[in-house]
């Protein structure tokens, strides 16, 4: 082993007795080795007790300030986690709502072939009331218009055995004879006891006494009058919160857009999506303790007896007996209270049922109830809307709403954030388009 290795081992305190003896021998025999040993020891001691470095006092403050900021970011990150979980729930709920509404949209998608759709309804009605000659005429007219696709659907839906224009001509001829048509004789039509789902969205056909039988056959206009198509309501709303019982939540505003389908004469169901934003205030306090400068200056330096031959020096120890805070006698505490306002936004989606209660000329009063989910939890509201029909399909609406929804809260001292439910009263204005 070289002298350098022996010196290094000596500095590490790893020399065996034999190596120690060898090192001593070499040092005494070789002046260069002696010089190298002395230099190594001096440097080692100089490094071991190079202890003048003091941590600047301002660093402590800046570190703890940064930790506070980091904790606040973590709190915000928790909100993000809440958001991500809620977003998945929200997405799932939206998909479920759309699946539930599929029968409605099925009807909606047929609006472009509206007449076909109405014929489809008619045939169903005929199949449900096969003895009604009037209804039968309506169905015959529909097929006579050559709407094969509609007729095809009708055949499939109602199980008709009508085949082409020959039988149609036969039926028309029979009808021209102004004789009451017994549909069972010319058309094999099974009775369908259960109306189809689409028929739920159309008004019942007028009875024979309610409709005028011109030339024994309904015109196209008659058909339009005798059935009601599915109407659609589109709306955009803007709301300002008047008040809420959610602690700390202020400046509440919301925007929403909805699409509804007419189920009956005065009833609509649909989906509404929107976003609610609000300001929320945090009050936090923090207590930072740091040794005062006088305390730092009064700390007695410890005299360590340096023994050049020793590679390590034992320092006096103080073993605390319990988890304690900094000594209050030598520690300055500074208490700070912060009130922070942050703007929060949450998106939501609901399914609603709306009913028109009162109609006076171009004015009407609607009520709506809705339930759904938002980013942070479940949402429900009730809404009263006054509607002023401007003419055509556009209406102006104004109303108020009572909404229960989750509000975010934060307690930064405990590095926690949470959700509290609250109720808000909101004033709404917007535009409705119904067609």
């Amino acid at each position: 082993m070289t002298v350098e290795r022996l010196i290094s081992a000596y500095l590490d305190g790893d020399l065996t007795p034999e190596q120690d003896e060898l090192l001593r021998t070499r040092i005494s025999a070789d002046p260069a080795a002696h010089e190298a040993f002395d230099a190594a020891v001096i440097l080692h001691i100089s490094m071991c007790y190079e202890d003048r470095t003091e941590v600047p006092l301002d660093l402590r403050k800046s570190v703890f300030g940064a930790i506070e900021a980091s904790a606040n970011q973590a709190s915000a990150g928790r909100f993000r986690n809440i958001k991500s979980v809620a977003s998945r729930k929200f997405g799932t709920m939206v998909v479920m709502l759309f699946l539930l509404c599929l029968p409605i949209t099925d009807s909606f998608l047929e609006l472009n072939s509206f007449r076909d759709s109405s014929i489809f309804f008619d045939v169903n009605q005929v199949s449900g009331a096969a003895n009604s000659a009037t209804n039968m005429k309506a169905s015959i007219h529909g097929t006579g218009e050559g709407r094969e696709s509609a007729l095809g659907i009708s055949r499939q839906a109602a199980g008709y055995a009508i085949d082409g224009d020959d039988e149609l001509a036969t039926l028309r001829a029979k009808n021209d004879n102004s004789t009451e048509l017994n549909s069972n004789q010319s058309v094999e039509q099974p009775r369908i006891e259960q109306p189809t789902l689409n028929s739920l969205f159309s008004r019942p056909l007028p009875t024979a006494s309610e409709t005028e039988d011109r030339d024994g056959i309904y015109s196209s206009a008659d058909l339009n009058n005798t059935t009601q198509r599915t109407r659609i309501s589109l709306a955009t709303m803007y709301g300002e919160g008047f008040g809420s019982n959610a602690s700390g939540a202020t400046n509440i505003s919301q925007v929403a857009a909805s699409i509804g389908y007419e189920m009956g004469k005065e009833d609509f169901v649909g989906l509404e999506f929107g976003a609610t934003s609000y300001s929320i205030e945090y009050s936090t306090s923090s207590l930072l303790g740091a040794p005062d400068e006088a305390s730092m200056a009064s700390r007695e330096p410890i005299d360590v007896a340096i023994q050049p031959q020793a590679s390590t020096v034992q320092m006096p120890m103080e073993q605390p007996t319990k988890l304690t805070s900094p000594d209050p006698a030598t520690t300055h505490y500074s208490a700070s209270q912060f009130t922070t306002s942050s703007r929060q936004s949450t998106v939501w989606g609901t399914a609603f049922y709306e009913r028109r209660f009162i109609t006076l000329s171009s004015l009407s009063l609607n009520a709506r109830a809705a339930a759904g989910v938002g980013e942070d939890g479940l949402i429900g509201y009730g809404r009263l809307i006054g509607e002023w029909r401007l003419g055509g399909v556009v209406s102006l609406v104004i109303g108020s709403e009572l909404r229960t929804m989750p509000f975010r809260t934060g307690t930064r001292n405990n590095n926690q954030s949470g959700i509290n439910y609250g109720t808000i009263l909101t004033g709404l204005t917007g535009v409705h388009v119904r067609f």
Partner: protein
Amino acid sequence: MRYNPNHRRSLEGGLLIQVLEEFRGGSRDAFRLLYDRFEYPIYRFCKHLTGDEATARDAFQETFIKMYEHRCDLKTINIESWLFSIARRVCLNLIRMRRRQHEAFDERLHTNSASSESDDILRDHLSRALSMLPLSLREAIILRDIEGHSYADIADIVGIDLSLAKVRVFRARLILRRILSPIVTERSS
């Protein structure tokens, strides 16, 4: 020579486990205790490794912030090694970022200064000599001779084999001695 013993060995055994448990849970008080325990060695380490006080301040702050942010990653009770490994990474990143060049060899190190007998001068020269070492050797000798870590801890902190840690410390000592030999020889004589 000023020395605060509380900063060397104030957290041990069951107390350390308790503090670490609370620290992992986000306790600020536990963080303060750990900060008090390690602020001096970490600052010293940062200062020696970066060789620059401003960079050392930044590294020091970033080390403790990372320590708090990544508290959940602390799987071992050996927080000292974990913390020094954070400090080492932070220092190396800052050094790389600032592209700090090693200072030109200071001729004063080879002059027989009239004040070379002073400990302060020796420490200043030592600090300069440390900054001349390659980073790998510098961190090894700082951890070993200044911070007093075992070779196993150094290997753990730096992420190298135990034997390589020993080699690096050995080489660093040799180079330091060569750099500082004029001063040390004068002083010893």
